């Protein structure tokens, strides 16, 4: 009796499982970062739009070895497509190639533009943080910045450091990257200290929305008016931009990084390999005084 019941349940599960498409996304977001939930949301919406199942996996530890295992486990469940972020092609390349060899189409997102083809992915949706930082640096240089500084809330986060590096390279002057930690009062104190220690600074980049707001307060405390660019969005940041107190913020448009790959994999599966001819850059979008008010309601939720 038990055996029949068990067999019946398994058959039912297999039957329902076989009907819908299933896409799995694996990223290196660590669960407390406000960036990745927007990507996940994009993926969920796209899957809902085409009637597919969507699963989102991430590694709380931030370790690339764990992520490689996660990719292997995801591939073992035989999804219809795999979407992976590629912060470290050496560590993850093996697992991704194995998935591709098993017949699962893979699209890489967010990081790893240069290595995407090497690991066997179909294409890449996203933009390296370095290029986004460069864009910010170009805007700063056009505004006359010659002595830049960068504030980062996570010292060991390579993606954030890359934003700073791109910013410095576009301006042509190597500045300091200040580790502010995510604590708001620490950000204010260290930013004030750095700005007072070097009065020649005329341009700043803050690589996170909370960091941006706190650095702005520090600028007000010290009494300097520095060109200030930021990354990502939050409602307070939108207010500051609208009021002209922060010059602009770089929107990575990470919702596109979640939404587009699901649709592309769906088209690839349904239409015998229909695929865009080149990688798709998801950004950067620049939010400045001209469009801040319009974006505010979506900040942190849909953008």
């Amino acid at each position: 009796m038990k055996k029949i019941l068990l067999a019946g349940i398994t058959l039912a599960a297999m039957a329902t499982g076989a009907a819908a498409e299933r896409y799995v996304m694996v990223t290196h977001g660590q669960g407390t970062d406000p960036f990745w939930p927007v990507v996940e949301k994009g993926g969920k919406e796209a899957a809902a739009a085409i009637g597919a199942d969507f699963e989102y996996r991430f590694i709380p530890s931030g370790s690339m070895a764990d992520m490689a295992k996660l990719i292997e486990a995801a591939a073992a469940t035989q999804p219809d497509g795999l979407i992976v972020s590629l912060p470290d092609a050496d560590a993850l390349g093996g697992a991704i190639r194995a998935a591709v060899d098993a017949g699962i189409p893979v699209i890489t997102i967010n990081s790893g533009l240069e290595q995407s083809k090497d690991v066997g992915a179909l294409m890449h949706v996203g933009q390296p943080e370095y290029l986004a930082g460069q864009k910010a640096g170009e805007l700063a240089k056009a505004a006359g910045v010659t002595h830049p500084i960068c504030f980062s809330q996570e010292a060991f986060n390579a993606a954030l450091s890359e934003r700073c590096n791109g910013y410095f390279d576009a301006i042509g002057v190597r500045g300091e990257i200040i580790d502010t930690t995510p604590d708001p009062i620490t950000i204010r104190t260290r930013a004030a200290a750095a700005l007072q220690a070097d009065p020649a600074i005329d341009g700043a980049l803050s690589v996170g929305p909370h960091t941006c707001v706190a650095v702005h307060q520090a600028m007000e405390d010290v009494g300097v008016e520095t060109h200030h660019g930021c990354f990502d969005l939050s409602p307070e940041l939108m207010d500051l931009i609208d009021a002209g107190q922060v010059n602009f913020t770089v929107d990575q448009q990470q919702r596109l990084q979640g939404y587009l790959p699901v649709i592309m994999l769906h088209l690839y599966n349904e239409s015998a390999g229909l695929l865009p001819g080149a990688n798709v850059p998801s950004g950067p979008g620049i939010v400045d005084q001209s469009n801040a008010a319009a974006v505010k309601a979506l900040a942190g939720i849909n953008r």
Partner: protein
Amino acid sequence: MATAENGDAGKRTEASRRKRQGWFAELLQRPEIASFAVMVVILVVLGFLAGNSVYNPLGIKNNLSIIAQLGIITTGACLLMIAGEFDLSIGSMIGFTGMSIGLMLKWGLPFGLGEATPGSAFLLTLVFAVAIGWSIGFVVTRTGLSSFIVSLGYLFILRGATEVGFRYINEGSTQVSSLPDFKQNSYVADIFGGQFLEPVFSMLYDVGWNVSRSGKLWVTGMDNRVGWWIVITLVAYVILSRTQIGNWIYATGDNVESARANGVPVRRVKIGLFMFSAFCSTVFAACQVFETNSSDAAKGQLLELEAIATAVVGGTLMTGGFGTILGIIFGAVIFGLLKNASFYIPWIDGAFYRVFLGTFLLVSTMFNEKIRKRITGGI
């Protein structure tokens, strides 16, 4: 006895402890002297290297805020260390209570209690936090497991609960922002996130010291968290040095079995101290949430290690039974200043701050050990 011991200058006996000396010599015998000396050295050196930015009104206000934040959680951690236990869940508790207050203010109180006010959000969160603190103490005392492991488990549980709370209640976003500025209307929000001593700073402006670059009033007031630190420190000092509970805490940390045999309610002391540590974490988080009117899931990471380090720098023993509130104050000043010292000094790359912290942690601890051994006669 007295003459024999007076003759041998280097040899100290039991009786030399009771010999009355000049007040300065007695001062040198206090256990906090090591951390006091280190603190004075740091204050002087920082004054030389970056005095105009560390000791101007903005520097004093910012650094005191950082010191106060550290001091609040260190008081909770230190009392626990004196009683012989560790609390590694402080940082995660800060993230959890910050999330709780933020989510309640945005989405309303749970259990269908309706709209949230800053006061009700804080109180309900405090009840949750103290209950969780009670449960940590309960698990530690009932199972006999090391508090290191139990609180480590809670570190993960609370951090995970914070992430889960944000994902499911906050529509997947890990931050609560764009809350109205409660400080304008609510006394409770102002007590945590506002400022005090405004008249003092106004007066300093009038005498020409607190003037900003544009000639106006510069620093408006001291953050209220400094006030909270002062209050918590005073309460802890009174309890530790003037009440029976303080004796119980020391006895529990020194030798649990003897304490129990002498009628000290060891279990209740430990559970109470875990609850106090949770209370300190909640105050910390409330000050942050009401100051910035936002909360997010990453707050408070690794702060438990800073609290333990500060307590040790201030002279608290890791094995329990030894520690003072004055030591915590000095330790918090040392640690709080060192955290940001390298950012004030232009020719040092700010990235060296962890190297500084670690080095001073070691130096202070060795210094403290030496002094403590001298005072307690080499035990």
